[in-house]
């Protein structure tokens, strides 16, 4: 399956400039691991940083700056690293590399918690005050993700399976990079559970009353 849905241009710039917080950076990095096109685009965006830094008004460094550097080199503490790094990664891993440090090498290892019928969740980073949260969802075929208006930006990367909403079908590698003003109702496609990685900027605001009543323990 080829990736249909990519990162927003503004997101690529924020990634390159380092403006995204850790939750969103992780989703972007995981998408980049799955998408050549956005990886190239991210490199283009980093070229902007190179250009801007090149044209900045230079700040004088201390007179002995280079001597200090050489002293550090001579102390031998900072050897050059070898370029052929040993592969950190398990070759049979089905988890995008950036995510492995957080959930392990295999999707099967994820310890899901049932939060509603057909909806499992694994919390990676709980959004404390003002921070984004990062979590994974595992939703059974045919199930709807409860309707919600976004309290903030939301980014969802499909790792396996697929869902459909008014924006189209989202399959493995696709990312839904959504502003706070977009509302949608994703429904998981038949056949296979949909596993996705989600970063949200603020707690999701549920519209539907029943769903709202469920929110305290559903906590999607």
């Amino acid at each position: 399956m080829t990736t249909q849905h990519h990162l927003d241009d503004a997101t690529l710039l924020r990634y390159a400039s380092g403006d995204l917080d850790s939750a969103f950076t992780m989703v972007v990095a995981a998408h980049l691991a799955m998408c050549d096109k956005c990886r190239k685009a991210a490199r283009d965006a980093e070229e902007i940083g190179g250009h801007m830094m090149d044209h900045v008004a230079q700040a004088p460094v201390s007179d002995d700056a280079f001597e200090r550097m050489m002293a550090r080199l001579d102390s031998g503490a900072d050897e050059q690293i070898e370029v052929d790094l040993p592969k950190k990664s398990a070759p049979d891993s089905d988890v995008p590399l950036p995510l492995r440090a957080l959930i392990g090498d295999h999707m099967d290892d994820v310890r899901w918690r049932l939060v509603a019928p057909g909806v499992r969740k694994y919390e990676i980073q709980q959004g404390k005050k003002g921070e984004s949260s990062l979590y994974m969802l595992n939703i059974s075929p045919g199930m709807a993700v409860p309707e919600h208006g976004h309290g903030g930006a939301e980014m969802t990367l499909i790792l396996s399976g697929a869902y459909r909403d008014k924006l189209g079908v989202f399959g493995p590698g696709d990312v839904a990079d959504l502003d706070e003003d977009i509302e949608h109702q994703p429904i998981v496609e038949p056949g296979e559970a949909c596993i996705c990685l989600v970063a949200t900027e603020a707690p999701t605001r549920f519209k539907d009353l029943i769903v709202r009543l469920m929110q305290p323990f559903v906590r999607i």
Partner: protein
Amino acid sequence: IGTADDPTLLKQAMVRVAEVQDRESFQFLFSYFAPRVKAVLLKAGSNESQAEDLMQDVMMTVWRKAKLYAPDRGSVNAWVFTVARNARIDLLRRASSRPYDDVYEIEMESDVASGEDEMFATERAERVSEALSELPEEQRQIIELGFIEDMSQSEIAEKLGLPLGTVKSRMRLAYGKMKSKLEAVR
């Protein structure tokens, strides 16, 4: 030294640092980049002594990871920028730049270097410069605040008294212009 307007000089110096740990070449890179890296760190909010120390760390990383610089992936400038960006994320934000390192590793594994790509990388850096120098001031300013002053989109919006949506759309416009220039060479 220190006025390497010719990007091939920087590239050559990087290669010599990577391959034979040539200190003269490193000194050349240091004199070029240290004042720029420090300037960026100051603008991003560190104080004088923090910026000096962090600059030392950034330049040390440039030395240590010189072999990871791949000329077919971008300019030396862009690479040093990313090293400085990651250092700033690690230190100033007390967060980890690890996802960036992982993406870099993926790049190292996935793309095979070729002479053609290297030419393209040079061309790309030129096109990006061209596009940026042609941007209207209102777009350029937003790019600069984001990339150099380390301001978030919402901080930029607040500083300029603009709605967040306007900041985003100007960013997209700026990037779109650059993209169309790049597509012309691809």
